[in-house]
Structure formats: structure tokens, C-alpha cells
């Protein structure tokens, strides 16, 4: 079996994996990183989105062997030094989650979106999150949270919500 080295949320793992093992199953079943959930099997829902070497990737559509040598950031590694990431805070403040199942993927996808566009319009957020499905919120508060998080990340004044 192929042997891979992968860093997940700052911890380096060496694992022997079946070539067909999906990255999301490596994270969940082998490494116990269950913060990243699975919502579908056709890469439509985005619940399993993680950052792979700094870009968002749906971890159900990446083989573990493809992540060999990569740095993976999941929702569990996002808060630093016990402080929540501004997007996490914004999701909480704007009530952008209900059941919370889509939230890890939604936040990681938003993180990638904000890298490209640090001050997105409402429309840009809606288009940018098209690959992530939520069944609870109707998206209004998710859009607000992403824009609020963007403001906080760039140090701009946060408008009252």
C-alpha cells in the first residue's frame, strides 16, 4: 500500500493507505478528524470542503494519495491560539447555521472566496458559494456572515447587523 505523509491542522501523519481511499475518509475514519462531514457522493454539496495547500478542495473528490506531501487545514484547525477565526465568529453572530452540518464546508469555501475577493458584494458571495449546499438557512445569513467576516479579516469597521 502507498505510504503518504500529510499534515492535518498542523500535525504530520505518516499513513499507509489503499490507493482508492478518499481524503475525507482518511480524515474521518483514520485520523479521527470528524469535524469535516460528508453530505453527498457526487461533489455537489461541499460539506467536506477543506483547504488543501491553501486552496479549497472537496475532500470527497480527492484521494488520500493525492494529498501526499500536502498541508490540509480543516475546520478543526481554523481557530488559532484559542481564538476563533473571524469567519467562525461571524457565522455565530449572524446566525448563519442551524443544524450546522454544512457549516465546516461553508466556512472553508468562504475562506477561499475571500482570498480572491476580500470585499465581495452580496452577489459575489452568492455566486462564490454555489458549490456548497445548505438546507436550513436559506443562505441569507450565510451571505451576511461571509461579508461580516470579510470586514473583520481586513480590519475594517464592522457595520452593525
Amino acid at each position, binding site marked *: 500500500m502507498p505510504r503518504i505523509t500529510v499534515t492535518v491542522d498542523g500535525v504530520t501523519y505518516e499513513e499507509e493507505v489503499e490507493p482508492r481511499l478518499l481524503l475525507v475518509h482518511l480524515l474521518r475514519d483514520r485520523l479521527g478528524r470528524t469535524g469535516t462531514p460528508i*453530505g453527498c457522493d457526487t461533489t455537489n454539496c461541499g460539506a467536506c470542503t477543506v483547504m488543501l495547500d491553501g486552496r479549497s478542495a472537496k475532500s470527497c473528490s480527492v484521494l488520500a494519495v493525492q494529498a501526499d506531501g500536502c498541508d490540509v487545514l480543516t475546520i478543526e484547525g481554523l481557530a488559532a491560539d484559542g481564538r476563533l477565526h473571524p469567519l467562525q465568529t461571524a457565522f455565530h453572530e449572524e446566525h448563519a447555521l442551524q*443544524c450546522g452540518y454544512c457549516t465546516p464546508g461553508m466556512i472553508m469555501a468562504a475562506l477561499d472566496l475571500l482570498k480572491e475577493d476580500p470585499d465581495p458584494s452580496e452577489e459575489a458571495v452568492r455566486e462564490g458559494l454555489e458549490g456548497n449546499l445548505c438546507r436550513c438557512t*436559506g443562505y441569507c445569513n450565510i451571505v451576511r456572515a461571509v461579508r461580516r467576516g470579510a470586514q473583520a479579516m481586513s480590519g475594517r469597521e464592522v457595520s452593525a447587523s
Partner: protein
Amino acid sequence: MTEVGSARRRKEDARLITGRTQWTDNIQLPGMLYVAYLRSPMAHARIVRVDTGPARREPGVVAAFSGRDFAQEQGSLPCAWPVSEDVVIPDHPPMAVHEVRYVGEAVACVVATDRYKAADALAAIEIEYEELPAVLDMAEALTDTAPKVHEAGNRAFTWRFGNGDIDAAFRDAPVVVDRTYVQQRLIPSAMEPRAVVAATDGDAFTLYSATQIPHILRVMLALTTGIPEHRLRVIAPDVGGGFGSKLQVTAEEVLALLLARRLGRPVKWTESRSEGNMTVHHGRDQLQRISVAAERDGRLRGIKVDLLADMGAYLMLVTPGIPLLGAFMYNGIYKMDAYDFGCTGVFTTKMPTDAYRGAGRPEATYALERVMDELAAEVGLDPLELRRRNWIRHEEFPYTTIANLTYDSGNYEAATERATTLFGYDKLRAEQADRRERRDPVQLGIGVSTYTEMCGLAPSRVLGSLSYGAGGWEHASVRMLPTGKVEVVTGSSPHGQGHVTAWSQIVADALGVPFEDVSVMHGDTAVSPRGMDTYGSRSLAVGGVAVLQACDKVKEKARQVAAHLLEASPEDLEFAEGSFRVRGTGAGRSIQEIALAVFAAHDLPDGFEPALDADATFDPENFSYPHGTHLCAIEVDTETGQSRIRSYVAVDDVGKVVNPLIVEGQVHGGLAQGIAQALFEEAVYDADGNLLTTTMADYLMPTAADLPDFVTDRTETPATSNPLGVKGVGEAGTIASTPAVVNAIVDALRPHGVHDVRMPCTPERIWRTLAGVRGGAA
């Protein structure tokens, strides 16, 4: 009261935004095995032969079974709602033994050491089918020559209800509008797929399941499997959405227990989305004929409804009851002299239907609000004016409707007034007239939906009268700990609704303790032994009230102790901000001090048990009747069929509000699901009974890019049927929005001669409808 009514951020969020969640699929137990199911590829077939032997020889496989291996112990999946004398409840083995009746029905399973190996070994199972004819269309299923889904035929039940002289209402009526609407089949699509883990020590069993109903599930599983109820613990860990789809007793839950018992090891099964689309119960799927008789001025005389409701292949937990939940709602907020409702449940070779957000009421509200717009066009009135002429006026409450429900409170005028103002109704009507005048290829449609619904399920006596198998009460325990902190146990079982936050707000006000000092436990039958769980917008209106009542009992106990310690009479004490004080003096004791005094038990009134806790069970005297006015503006391109929601205004009246943030979130999500039915979603079977929409690429749940920002607001007319004054909100948005959207589309196209567009109103459907009325080839 300071907490109730405030937009508290949720306590639930901290875990969910950091990934410290406990979904059922996360659970790993020592020695745990994984289950995979072989499912029928045929809609209807006799099972000639199954051989699981070859699968057992595959790597990592511990066991493989077919339905025959469990035939003596698997029982029949329960239907708890035998709606009528004539209802036919067919045997429903969790794994098929002799015959399969829908694509996706489980026929065999493999249990292996990991999920990949279990899935691999399914291919080694040998199975031979003898194909039988499928029957997919309800009308065809009811003909004498149709293939029979079950031996007893395809008619599952008939159910009638009526009030007033319907013949008189229709005889010589100046206006009669008669329409047939199709409620397409939907897939609930909670984001968390179903998952179940079962473990046993040989005697006692623990079942973890992504379920809305741990308490009901425990009772039903005990009855189905024969495992004694007191040896079975059911846990609903974090549950990722339900929308009715996890209000079920599933084959996989029953079989998880049986497999754990047979193998003596814990087992886990998690569905894939494709598997779930086929085998999580579907929603809606009704054919609705609705006739309305009216005066020339638009005043209603009566309404007749005749439904065919697709049950699918079996009756599951509340399958036949779903259309009945709509039976009392086809009159909506309107006054009339007569009402007549009839429903036939029909078996077809498809996945069974059951509860999906709104359950019966969205269907009823859709048909009624659609036909009201047709009537408005017929008599030449603005749709809002027609509604004004017919609705119950605010001074007429409480009002007993033609469907024999008593609406306790409401103010349809106020909600409508607020909605039209926010929407800019007159201005949009002017723009619409202008576009019509100019023959603009992009037409503007305005959709109206003035709804109410019955929720807060439900008075136990009413459920009994409808032959439902259980009551509608809810239970709560509230206990004060020695340090003054509070633990609440609720029988309601959340999966995204925010119970922990809302219950904390109720308790904080009732006991005068800090919001942070309250913790709420739920979803585990060992922790929360009594409950009726979460569905039907019942949690706050029933479960929240039980919490309040338990707090009241705790407070009364504390008053006895305070009086004793202060050497005063209990009646002379006033309670404010968490302290009992003797009226007219400064002397007082905080409730936390009393909690500690009760714990110490050194100086209590004679006979006082040293425990500051209480249980309460609330059985509502009536349903809850939220209402509201929803307005939708849609631009429809008459050349391409493309539509775009330009604005959506929802003004809802859900009575008193505990947390406006949570209420708004429920409305947003409800709107998205109702709009999804109107524009995007449909479960499609082909002529052979294969589900074509097995993935999220085929079944179009809306994305952020497909939906607009919603304008929401509220009016507040307190419910008079519960002490919190609250009404349910979980389903209102879904119930109201579907007709608002379709009314808007039809309104845009009415000058072109269009009277209906079948849901989902996709660009292609709209284009074909226009082509049809233009007489062009479509």
C-alpha cells in the same frame, strides 16, 4: 422578562463552528463493524433466489444476510396512523423476503470490517429476480386491470370529511372554479445523510441514530424487534437536519439492532446520498382537485376537495396521516358555508411518502391559494381584495372554521397591511401594468399568499379522534443544582432548531437566573426518559411550555423554603429578579441561596423533600395557528421561460417570539424550501420505476446563487392557548411560499392566456406552457 424576546446568539454554535460535533457517523466503538445493503434494482419483482455465500468469502467480510435470514425476527416496519376502518397496512419487512416493491428496497446486507470492504462484497451476492409489472401512476393504479402492488389491491384507504351543505353551496352558484393541481414528489434532503450505530452487551442495547424522534423510535423499535423497552436506549446525537425525513422508523434502524444481536458486535451503517435519495421517505406527491363556489362579488360559498395521495409501496410511520393534516386546512383563513374533503391513498411501486416540512398543510395551502388567485381573475378582483372579502376579521377571533377548528387568535389585516407596505404593492402593480401595456417580453408577476396553518402537534384527544397511535404532549424536567445552576431536560429533540438557546431564555426569565447558568439536555432516552420529540412545529408551542410549567413548579417549591427561612407566609413573598422578598421589608433570599439550603437540608419546612426540581407535561388544548402574508415579485422572460425572483416579502405572525434571530432563521429556511418546490425540485421516476434523481446533480436543491435576499417582518398576535403566547414557526415559511411563487409566475403570464404552470416551474416548463397556449409546437 428580559431574556424572552431578545436575539441571543446560540449556545449550540460553539461546537458546530469548530467541528467539535458528534454526528452519528463520527461514532467509533471497539470492534465495530460496517453494514452495507444490497438494494433492489427493480421497481417490482419476486425474489427467486438469494445466495450470500460468495459475499461471505470476500476479504474483511464477517457476515452476509438476506431477508430470509431475518424473516422470523425482523417483524414489520410500523405504521402508527391507521387512518380509517378500510385502511390496508401491508406487511413491510425491513429486508425484503419474497417480493420487492420499489427501487432501492433492501434485499441483503454485508457486514465487514470497514465500509469499503462491505460495499465491495455486495457485488458477490447472487440474486435472481422475476420481474413483475411496475405501477407508477395513481389513476392507473386504481383501475381494475392495474398490476397489484399488494395482494389486497392498490387502494390504501379512503377518508372523507365535510361540514355544511356542500350541494347547496354549489347549486346555482354564480361562479364555480374547478382546478386540478399536481403536488410533485419531493426528496427532503437533510444535509446529514442517515446513519445508525447499534451496540449490545448481550442483554441491553444502545442505538445511536440520526433521528428526530428518539423517544418514539424507542417504543416502536421495542414493539417491532421484541427487545424489551427497558433494555433499549436510543440516542440522537448531533443531528444534521430532518425536515420530517428523520421522523421515521427505518429498516436500517431495526436491522442494526438485529445485526448487533446476531453478531455480538457493534455495527454502523451510513447511507450514501444516492442511496438516501432512493430510500429516505419522499414528500408530497398528491393530485389535488379543488372546486370553489362563490358569489359574483367573490364571497366564498363552499369548497370541495378530492385528493389522490401517493403512498408509495408501503405505509410507513405516518404515511396515510399526511393528507389528513391538510384536510382541515383547505379553507385556510376564509369564511364559507360548506366544505367537503375526500382523499384516497394509493399504492404505487415507488419509495413510500411520509412527513416532509409542512406535511399536508403545504399541499392544502398551495391548492387553496392558487385557486383563490384563479377566482380573483374570474370575478375581476385584485387577489388581495378577494382575500379581504373572505378572511376572518381580527375582531371575530376566536373563530370556529368550517373545518371545525377553532383559531384562537390572528390579525390578517395587520400582517397584510405591513406586507404590502414593505413590498411596495401598488408601485409594483403599476410597473406590471406598464409592462403589459408595452408588451415587454419580460413580464412582471405578483404572487400573493395569505396563509394560516395548524401546528404545535397536538392535543392528544384530537390525535386520538383521528386514529393516531400516540399523544401530542411534551415533557420537561427542571432541576436546580446546589450551586444555583439549572439543568433542563426536554423531551423535544432538536436537530438545528436552537432549543438549547431558547429553553435557556425561558428558564432564565422564569427563575431569574443568568442565561449562562442554564444547560439543556435532550435526545437520549436514558437522560430524557419521556418525550414526544420534534416535528410539526411543536417544540416551542408544546415543549417550551412544558419547560415554563416545570419552572413554575420549581419556583413554588422555592417559595415554600423561602417563606420558611424568612419566617413569612408564602403569600407575602414577591418574586423578582431571582429573589423572594417579603413585601414591604428588605428581607429576601435568592433562588440560588434557596437551592443551596435545599441541598443542605438543615432547615427545611416539615415534610419538604430536599430537591429543588420539578417535572411538567404539557398537553395543548388546541393547535397553534401562525399566519401571515407573503408577497413575491417575479420577472418572467416570455421568450425563454427564465424567471427571476425580484423581491420576496414575508410578514409572519407567530405570536410571542422567544428569540427573533431563531424565528427569522426558521422563516428564511422555510422560504427556501417552499421556493424550491415551486421552481427547482422534483423526484422523477422513469416508466420502469427507476429513480432518475438519485444525486444532488439531478435533484436540484437551490444554492445561494438561486435565491434572493428575503425581506421578513412580523406582527405579533399572542396565542391564547398557551401561557407563553407562542405559535409554531418551523413550517410556516414552507407552507406560505410555494403558492406565492407560483401565483407570481401565473400572474406574469395570465395576459398570455396561462392559468397554471406545473411545478417545478422550470424555464422549460414555463416555455412549454407558453408555447402550448400560443398553439405552437412545444
